[in-house]
């Protein structure tokens, strides 16, 4: 394969094109209709009337406020909880347990987590059953609005819980880079408490490394659809949900208003980022003196208490939410305030097996194909780095994040406009490609470290033995990195399974997956069936991760060093 190196060097360009083109085309495809131009829908004149229509949409102020506030509040809460968790537990024995409990929760799809949380905290949910009637005195479900409270508390809570594992894992990857262990040890030997030492000695170095993931969290939180549909208020909903509703409106002229709404969403998200950025400036200005004030133990006990409380609370709520899903899926008649459904029945599972076939197979095939595409491109990019002998530039790394930094609803809608304009069929290929777009950043982030860290002498030994670059790639690198590659695949598969909006929009609503079904069911009344779909949605990524861990152990059961990790 003499063309291997030439071919592999082209891969980064293909990957960048896959990431940039849809985003740019999508944005372009949303700008024109927002100003009236969309011939396929009869829009052939430039006009501002759709903006006027958007401006007079009922509740627009509330929509914007909801998006901004829930997004910023959940990002801030996530950052505070993760920071306190790290400050309290870093380099302690409990940290290993926390890590093992939180990491798998990253794979829980947003919709499943939101459904679990809704079922836990709703007035007739597991939480209020557990305290009734012996503590609360409630013989009937209490009267409070959850989920769907008008200020978006439920929504912010759901977003926070789901983002904690993500930010925690990103921080864990960044900690060695900023020599957190040494910094903490140094600070503590100078007499700083664990919280003060972490905040003053580690955080200033850690924050820049987790800034990009945080921005991705803000973008997601201000513009997400499925969590907002399940946990957010509905009249008015957050802006992004309203945009999706307008898109689905039978009156096609509403598409123009949706396009304008998408642009407004970009503005709102950009505004949230700007506010956050100003907050960063402010904190760094105000914090400069605090860093040098020499106080070593101020607020130490409060910080530790909060850190412990919030960490275990977050884990507890997530675990209880998932446990509640299992109970609901098995519940027959379950009157309030019983905490345990009796008798247990498989009725909902049997009911689901009849209708679940198509969405299950769609979910799996799309997930596998999108992950396959993303893995090939990721491996190609990383192998190209080896041959170019330098890592991807900072700009390229930023582009990898691009699909996570632009609100989905904005550019996906634009892609749909192109689809209609060009008369292309909505369906499986378009949905798969759009999933690959969101999977690629995650597979890359997951695999890059292990790939780059592999001892270069393995390649050199193979080359001096006469192996060509292609043969080194196939016979040395891929098998030796099989375990991290499988994990990256499992991460990608989980991301694809969680996707809601790309499936809905590029599949034109006709392609169903477990996620679209679960979100649809959640707005209906059947908790039992909803729970079954959410559990299926949860089980698939779990299965992926189980395989990714088990397969290498099976393959390499006679290869001691492959199991001990000496090879990487």
């Amino acid at each position: 394969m003499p063309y291997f190196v030439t071919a592999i060097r082209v891969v980064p360009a293909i990957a960048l094109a896959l990431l940039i083109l849809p985003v740019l085309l999508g944005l372009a495809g949303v700008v024109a209709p927002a100003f009236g131009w969309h011939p396929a829908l009869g829009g052939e004149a430039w006009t501002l009337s759709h903006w006027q229509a958007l401006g007079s949409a009922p509740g627009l102020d509330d929509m914007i406020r909801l998006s901004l506030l829930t997004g910023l509040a959940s990002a801030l809460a996530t950052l505070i909880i993760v920071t306190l968790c790290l400050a309290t537990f870093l380099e302690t024995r409990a940290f290993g347990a926390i890590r093992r409990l939180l990491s798998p929760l990253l794979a829980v799809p947003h919709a499943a987590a939101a459904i679990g949380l809704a079922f836990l905290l709703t007035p007739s949910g597991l939480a209020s059953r557990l305290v009734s009637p012996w503590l609360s005195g409630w013989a009937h479900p209490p009267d409070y609005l959850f989920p769907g409270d008008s200020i978006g508390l439920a929504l912010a809570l759901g977003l926070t819980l789901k983002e904690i594992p993500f930010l925690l894992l990103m921080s864990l990857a960044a900690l060695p880079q900023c020599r957190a262990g040494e910094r903490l040890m140094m600070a503590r030997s100078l007499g700083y408490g664990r919280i003060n030492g972490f905040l003053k000695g580690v955080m200033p170095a850690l924050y820049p490394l987790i800034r990009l993931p945080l921005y991705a969290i803000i973008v997601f939180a201000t513009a997400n659809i499925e969590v907002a549909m399940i946990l957010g208020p509905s009249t008015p909903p957050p802006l992004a949900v309203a945009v999706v509703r307008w898109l689905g409106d039978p009156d096609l002229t509403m598409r123009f208003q949706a396009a304008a709404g998408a642009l407004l969403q970009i503005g709102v998200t950009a505004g949230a980022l700007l506010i956050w950025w100003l907050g960063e400036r402010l904190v760094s200005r105000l914090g400069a003196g605090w860093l040098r004030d020499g106080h070593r133990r101020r607020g130490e006990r409060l910080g530790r208490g909060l850190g412990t409380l919030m960490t275990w609370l977050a884990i507890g709520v997530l675990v209880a939410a998932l446990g509640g899903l299992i109970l609901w899926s098995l519940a027959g008649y379950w009157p309030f305030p019983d905490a345990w459904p009796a008798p247990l029945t498989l009725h909902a599972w049997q009911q689901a097996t009849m209708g679940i076939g198509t969405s299950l197979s769609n979910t799996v095939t799309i997930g596998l194909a999108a992950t396959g595409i993303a893995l090939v491109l990721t491996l190609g990019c990383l192998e190209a780095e080896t041959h170019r002998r330098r890592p991807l530039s900072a700009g390229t790394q930023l582009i990898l994040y691009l699909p996570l930094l632009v609100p989905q609803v904005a550019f996906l809608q634009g892609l749909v406009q192109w689809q209609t304009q060009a008369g292309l069929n909505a369906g499986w290929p378009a949905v798969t490609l759009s999933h690959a777009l969101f999977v690629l950043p995650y597979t890359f982030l997951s695999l890059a470290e292990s790939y780059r860290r592999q001892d270069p002498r393995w390649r050199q030994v193979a080359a001096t033995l006469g192996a060509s670059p292609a043969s080194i790639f196939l016979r040395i690198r891929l098998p030796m990195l099989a375990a991290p590659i499988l994990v990256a695949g499992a991460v990608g598969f989980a991301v694809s399974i969680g996707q809601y909006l790309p499936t809905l929009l590029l599949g034109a609503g006709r392609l169903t997956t477990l996620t679209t079904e679960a979100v649809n069911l959640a707005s209906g009344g059947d908790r039992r069936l909803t729970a079954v779909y959410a559990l299926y949605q949860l089980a698939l990524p779990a299965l992926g991760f189980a395989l990714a861990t088990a397969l290498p152990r099976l393959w390499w059961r006679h290869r001691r060093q492959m199991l001990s990790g000496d090879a990487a």
Partner: protein
Amino acid sequence: MSTAPLRLDEIAITHGGPPLIDISASVAPGEILTLMGPSGVGKSTLLAHIAGFLPVGFQASGRVLLGETDLGLLPPERRRLGLLFQDPLLFPHLDVGGNLAFGMPAGGSRRQRRDEVNTALDDIGLSGFAERDPGTLSGGQRARVALMRVLLARPRAMLLDEPFSKLDTALRDEMRRLVFERIRRDGLPTLMVTHDRADAEAAGGPIIEL
């Protein structure tokens, strides 16, 4: 087997400043030229350059010739240089036989290749080890497999990068004898870098202090 000498023709390696290494030398077939010096003078960088793996940030001038062939014009995998590191670096995902077969040139039936692997194992006193996991071998056994893997690739010259420094004293003598005997028998021009004077003396060839 090989009769061509290895020549270093005014090789200079720089790292954005004055040359770290500036050397001209000729190594006859079967001869072992030892480069000695403290760590950090760029001995290993010189070997890496000859093998075709000059690290990023270094520049090299001059030519490396094997007989009439200018090795600088060939990619690493076509230079046919046997490189031994201080670690045996047996591929952990292959068994011992697989590691040896990886070194052998392609061709021959499955059976012929297996026979060749077994003969090679007999040769280094490891008969019947073909299906063993390299992770279960002792340090000395790994070193012998690594040597045999290099020899099976039919190199035309050898590069030894502190090859004995991680072995304990008893093994070290044994490995030295084995390696040097093969080099002389096969007539391979050899470049060895080390900071152990005993290596240099055992090699019995010329010594260049860096």
